[in-house]
């Protein structure tokens, strides 16, 4: 074992570097900051590290690393709070946690779900760190085996998870995924720069829609609106059942599942270019496939929390491999991490190919810090989960405006643009309708997330393969059908077949009654109309930009065929068929308020923002909502508004963001934060 003789001294050097009170103090500081940032949906590693960046210059390298690793490592731990308690994906890494975590919270078992999630996170984080310790010495050649065809196949494998999440009518899931992919193609094509469903007159669309906005819109807004209409607390039970100890027992009973999902997390994390947004879905799919009794998924199966949460912390460990060994960031936060390392000390740590040779002790220090940060973060989270779970007993009409404020802030934090809010509202409306008619929202999101990698890798693989085939047939075949690709194809096919067979028993979003024919039909026709428009739009792309035309045309074509088959089925089948699922029908939900009245509140915020700018609009919105919708006193409403505005300004000040201006700001010069 040659590498042991290299690794062991470096390991002990690393232990010496970090096992000092000051270093551990900075680590805990980073952990606490990471927890504070991660609790808010939509804010994650990028926001947190941006906050730290100004302090990195000239800082002692180990102290700076402790601070940054502490922060990055615990974001996937604390983002579970939002996923479980509010049904809002805390970050792209815990989208799948929502599916079962939130139903558990609704049943009053939030503390149980949280502590099971945290135990899984801890385990995953430790598995990730342990794996890294050994793997990092042999990783380089293995990572280099993942060329474009392999990356494409991993993407396709991720897409195959649509099969298991498609819901009762598989075809609806497939069309939903196709729609998600088409939304993902909006904007300038990567290959030739042709525009798809966008014009230069609307610059916002040219860059495409951001994952934060689509994720929040498709999951968070429908849940908020639904809960708001029912006008009660999130938790149905008055008492919080199942304490944190129950969650730990749940995790222990499923430790092997947790171990498998951790390994999935590390492996997917290691592959550069895919990052974390698929790993939780793959882990969720695996969890469902390996569970005997599938009936509880979607309505509060604790395994559905353990799987994704084990994988998303392990992914951070895996994600460090391409970052440290190749200097290629696996995610946005890793890109900032690389930039920040360059600022540390006198800049003698260079992330990239020379890292292992020159800085093996630092490399291992990073791994150890990662493990320690996970332990510290989990302990803090478990200790606080019982208390924080009580949030679910607060009447939702008090929670909703606050949540909506946070989501809006998260949505425009990258663009600082009113259009971000418009997009959020539009996607939110789509999400509400998909939820109503029982179209799989996870399938839509998977399609959206994987749309860009699927298109890019497919185009690149075709182009490179063509060049290989010119050199010789055998060389081309060797390139496309490498052993890894063949294994991935086999896994994907099995996953699709098994998934589709089982999908009928999994109600990823709970049972839904069937209603009348008319409403589901109109929604299907609207989806079909968009798909046809997108298809025609893509077909108009001229020949020289053909690379940007093929993918949207193909996906839209498949989705259109699927939608047409659905349409025929709808005409033939009786109203009681699952095709016509409609939450507005029957007694699935006891709504106190109408859909459109509730939506009008948020539309009002949007219109006011366009007129007065975000902060003034928010003040009016919060005050009016608490006074009239939640029915509290004038004083209560004023205090709530003041707290909300104060909180928002503090966040913006810390993260150094402006708020979107409105019409008023173009006439009057107002001081920050009103600008």
């Amino acid at each position, binding site marked *: 074992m040659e590498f042991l003789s290299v690794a062991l001294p470096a390991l002990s050097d690393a232990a010496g570097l970090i096992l000092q009170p000051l270093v551990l103090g900075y680590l805990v*500081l980073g952990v*606490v*900051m990471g927890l*504070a940032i991660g*609790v808010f949906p939509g804010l994650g590693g*990028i926001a947190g590290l*941006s906050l730290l*960046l*100004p*302090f990195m*210059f*000239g*800082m*002692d390298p180990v102290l700076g690393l402790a*601070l940054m690793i502490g922060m990055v490592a615990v974001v996937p731990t604390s983002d579970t709070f939002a996923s479980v308690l509010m049904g809002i994906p805390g970050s792209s890494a815990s989208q799948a946690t929502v599916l079962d975590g939130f139903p558990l919270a609704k049943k009053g078992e939030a503390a149980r779900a949280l502590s099971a999630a945290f135990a899984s996170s801890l385990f995953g984080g430790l598995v990730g760190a342990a794996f890294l310790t050994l793997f990092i010495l042999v990783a380089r050649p293995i990572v*280099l085996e*993942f060329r*474009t065809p392999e990356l494409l196949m991993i993407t396709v494998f991720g897409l195959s998870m649509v099969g298991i999440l498609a819901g009762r009518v598989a075809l609806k899931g497939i069309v939903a995924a196709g729609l998600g992919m088409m939304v993902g193609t909006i904007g300038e094509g*990567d290959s*030739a*720069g042709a525009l798809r469903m966008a014009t*230069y007159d609307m*610059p916002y669309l*040219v*860059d495409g829609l951001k994952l934060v906005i689509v994720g929040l819109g498709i999951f968070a807004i429908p849940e908020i609106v639904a809960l708001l209409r029912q006008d009660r607390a999130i938790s149905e039970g008055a008492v919080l059942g199942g304490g944190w100890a129950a969650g730990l027992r749940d995790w222990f009973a499923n430790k092997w599942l947790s171990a498998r999902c951790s390994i999935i997390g590390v492996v997917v994390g290691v592959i*550069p*270019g895919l990052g974390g947004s698929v790993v939780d879905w793959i882990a969720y799919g695996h969890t469902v496939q390996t569970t005997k009794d599938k009936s509880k998924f979607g309505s509060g199966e604790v395994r559905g929390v353990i799987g994704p949460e084990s994988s998303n912390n392990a992914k951070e460990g895996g994600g460090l491999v391409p970052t440290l060994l*190749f*200097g*290629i*960031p696996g995610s*946005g936060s890793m*890109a900032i991490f690389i*930039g*920040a390392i*360059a*600022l540390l000390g*006198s*800049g003698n740590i*260079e*992330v*990239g*190919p*020379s890292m292992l040779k020159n800085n093996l002790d630092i490399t291992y220090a990073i791994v150890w810090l990662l493990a320690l940060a996970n332990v510290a973060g989990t302990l803090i989270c478990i200790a606080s989960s019982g208390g924080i779970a009580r949030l679910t007993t607060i009447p939702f009409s008090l929670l909703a405006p606050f949540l909506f404020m946070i989501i809006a802030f998260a949505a425009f934090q*990258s663009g600082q643009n009113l259009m971000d809010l418009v997009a959020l509202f539009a996607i939110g409306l789509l999400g509400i309708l998909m939820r109503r008619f029982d179209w799989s929202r996870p399938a839509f999101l998977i399609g959206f997330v994987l749309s860009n990698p699927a*298109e*890019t890798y497919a*185009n*690149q693989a075709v*182009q490179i393969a063509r*060049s290989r085939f*010119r050199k010789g047939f055998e060389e081309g075949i060797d390139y496309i059908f490498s052993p890894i690709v063949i294994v991935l194809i086999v896994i994907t096919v099995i996953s699709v077949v098994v998934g589709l067979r089982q999908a009928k028993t999994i109600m990823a979003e709970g049972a839904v009654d069937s209603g009348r024919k008319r409403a589901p039909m109109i929604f299907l026709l609207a989806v079909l109309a968009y798909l046809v428009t997108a298809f025609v739009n893509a077909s108009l792309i*001229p020949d*020289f*930009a053909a690379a940007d035309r093929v993918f949207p045309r193909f996906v839209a074509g498949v989705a259109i065929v699927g939608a047409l088959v659905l349409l025929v089925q709808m005409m033939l089948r009786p109203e009681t068929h699952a095709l016509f699922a409609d939450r507005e029908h029957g007694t699935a939900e006891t709504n106190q308020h109408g859909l459109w009245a509730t939506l009008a509140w948020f539309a009002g915020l949007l219109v006011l923002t366009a007129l007065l700018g975000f902060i003034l609009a928010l003040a009016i919105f919060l005050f009016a909502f608490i006074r009239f919708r939640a029915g509290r006193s004038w004083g209560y409403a004023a205090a709530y508004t003041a*707290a909300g505005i104060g*909180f928002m300004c*503090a*966040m913006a000040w*810390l993260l150094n963001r402006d708020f979107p201006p409105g019409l008023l700001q173009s006439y009057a010069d107002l001081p920050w934060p009103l600008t």
Partner: protein
Amino acid sequence: MTIITTTRRVALGLAAAAAASFATQAHAGGHGIDLAGKTVEWVIPFSETGGSAKWANFYAPLLSEALPGEPTVVVKFMPGAGSTKGANWFQEQSYDDGTLIFGSSGSTQFPYLLGDPRVRYEYNDWNVVLASGTGGVAYLPPDLAGMMNGLDASALQGTDFIYGSQGATRLDLVPLLAWEMLGLQVEPVFGIKGRGDGRLMFERGEANIDYQTSSSYLKGVTPLVEAGTAVPMMSWGALDADGNIVRDPTFPDMPTFKEVCEATPGCETSGEKWDAWKAFFVAGFPAQKMVFLPAGASNDAMVTYKAAFDAIKARDDFAEISAGRLGVYPQMTGDEATGALASATQVPDSAKAFVVGWLQDRYGVSLN
């Protein structure tokens, strides 16, 4: 609310710690504007993850120390439409009190030069206070590099080259045109997200030609060269005071593209093709990243910022801390910066027309 107070306290504590660790203090003297108690916003029209972010994050803390009154300097990211969104926004800003600066890059310059329809900004309206140069190096796998006959690249003309590219209208225009002039059959594979991905593609053996800017080359490719898996082919060179292309001071042992071109039959270092290449090289590399004050900036403000950047350059440790981050390239202020801006943004019409036509013929890119 407790969460926020904790974070704030943490931030302030860190600020104190960071301030204490700064060794040197440099002040800009003389008349000028005082920025005490103010916050300077440095707008970067890219995301937090790119090269411009690294460059701005390198300078921001130094600038904060060097400006009179030691204002807080914050880097603000405004990504979109390949930096034209941020640049269009900056065009609409007017000078107020010297607390707004803008950082452009080669990716902002090229659409401007090529007449991209999205460009609504005008470099001549802005006031340059710093211009940072860089260079670039093209490299090959060892077997292909071995086919070169000294500097003569004609033996490579029969090879199918694959290159991971970010887009033909970006900085990649310079290497693509250079390789074409040498007669190489280079097929760009578009859709990569950064030059780091291009290098990874090269390391995986999928691409067999690549280029990196100087600092990325030093960090990412030098270890490959040492390991024997990559061989430098040529640098783009650097400009001397008279505007001639000479060897890059960061890579004095490496031939420039000009030398390789001269040694390769069929490649000419004169004529419209060469002029176009040189014009776009000058626009993209020797003055790649610039700092601007908005239109209407007062002379006092200009003087203040020039003095601040001069003070940064005069730091004892500047050479040491900048070498790894920026490479050994001129960091120009004052008249030098103005000259660099002029050569970077004033490309002869003939060169522009040639490149526009070449992009159309070769890649089908229409810029209208």
